[in-house]
């Protein structure tokens, strides 16, 4: 399926809501739970969830959602999670990714990581100052980080720079940390984001004070 078709699969409010719900969980989600969250009947949710799988946006699996085992525990339920891979659509065609990969390679070859971190900090501060977002969490959400509260810490479920971070992890994660520090500074908020990466998530975490001030 081409990129445009994958993205076009989200051109339905119910489907979009289901996609948003499943991807916000960071764990496999069952049909009942998704249907409830989207406020639709289970068969309709199941239909749309499977469409999202066909489009390559979600991945389906079977899992037991209860602790019960043996006879009477029923068959495993169908669960959904975000599919790996990304879909980029630009009209007209633009390709910033290839150029970013080239530039990251250049920075690495020149040993220019410290300069790159300073630049990331400056740009982060500018973005932070320009944004109209009411809270840090809102700003991070706008920028695609998918923030969530984790026991008082503000963690980021999605790495907006995933492809680059795979190619040049040390450079890109360090730049991302500087960018996040800049975002906070640009908003005039205190706090010290730090690196605390986990498999499959963004590498930056904001401490309690940033999370707390953003509880709604």
């Amino acid at each position, binding site marked *: 399926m081409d990129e445009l078709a994958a993205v076009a699969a989200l051109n339905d409010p119910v489907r979009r809501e289901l996609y948003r719900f499943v991807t916000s969980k960071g764990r496999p989600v069952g049909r009942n739970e998704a249907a409830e969250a989207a406020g639709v009947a289970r068969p309709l949710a199941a239909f749309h969830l499977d469409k999202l799988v066909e489009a390559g946006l979600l991945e389906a699996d079977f899992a037991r959602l209860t602790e019960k085992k043996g006879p009477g525990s029923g068959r495993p339920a169908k669960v959904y999670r975000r599919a790996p891979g990304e879909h980029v659509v630009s009209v007209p065609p633009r390709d910033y990714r290839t150029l970013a990969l080239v530039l990251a390679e250049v920075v690495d070859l020149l*040993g220019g*990581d*410290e300069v790159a971190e300073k630049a990331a900090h400056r740009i982060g501060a500018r973005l932070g100052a320009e944004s109209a977002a009411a809270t840090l969490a809102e700003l991070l959400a706008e920028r695609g980080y998918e923030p969530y509260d984790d026991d008082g810490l503000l963690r980021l479920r999605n790495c907006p720079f995933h492809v680059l971070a795979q*190619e040049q*992890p*040390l450079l890109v*994660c*360090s730049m991302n*940390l500087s960018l996040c520090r800049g975002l906070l500074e640009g908003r005039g908020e205190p706090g010290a984001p*730090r*690196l*605390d*990466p*986990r*498999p*499959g998530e963004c*590498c930056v975490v904001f401490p309690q004070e940033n999370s707390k001030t953003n509880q709604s």
Partner: protein
Amino acid sequence: MHLAQFNVAHMRAPVDDPLLAEFVAALEPVNTLADAAPGFVWRAIANEDDPEETITHEFGDHLLINYSIWASRETLWNFVYRSPHLAVLQRRREWFQRVAEPYTVMWWVEEGEIPSLKEAWNRLTLLREKGPTADAFTFKEFYEPNGARG
């Protein structure tokens, strides 16, 4: 097959210099983390009783070496870049000199096999001389056990 990794770092001062103090202090927690990490198989240890003691070798002065074996590329990657190890790596310029030549190498070993330190050094030398090959490669230019480019 298991994945062996060997890396060297040129310290900016002798290991007991205050400049290196925070790095040395991070050795025990980071090594403990490695030992408990999914896919960890083995690592070279200088002294069972002193986690801060570094491995002695004949490859040069002020050269810190790190040698370990992992179950797969993914498990090694997750430890190096997706764990608290990354925060230590990010501060490397404070403690280590920038080097132009490759300082880290990987190669596949039979399960249970632990090649000598000399062999590990030879793999790094091979990478430096020939560039990445199926016998000595890197994360960026990775080779599968069957010799195919990863």
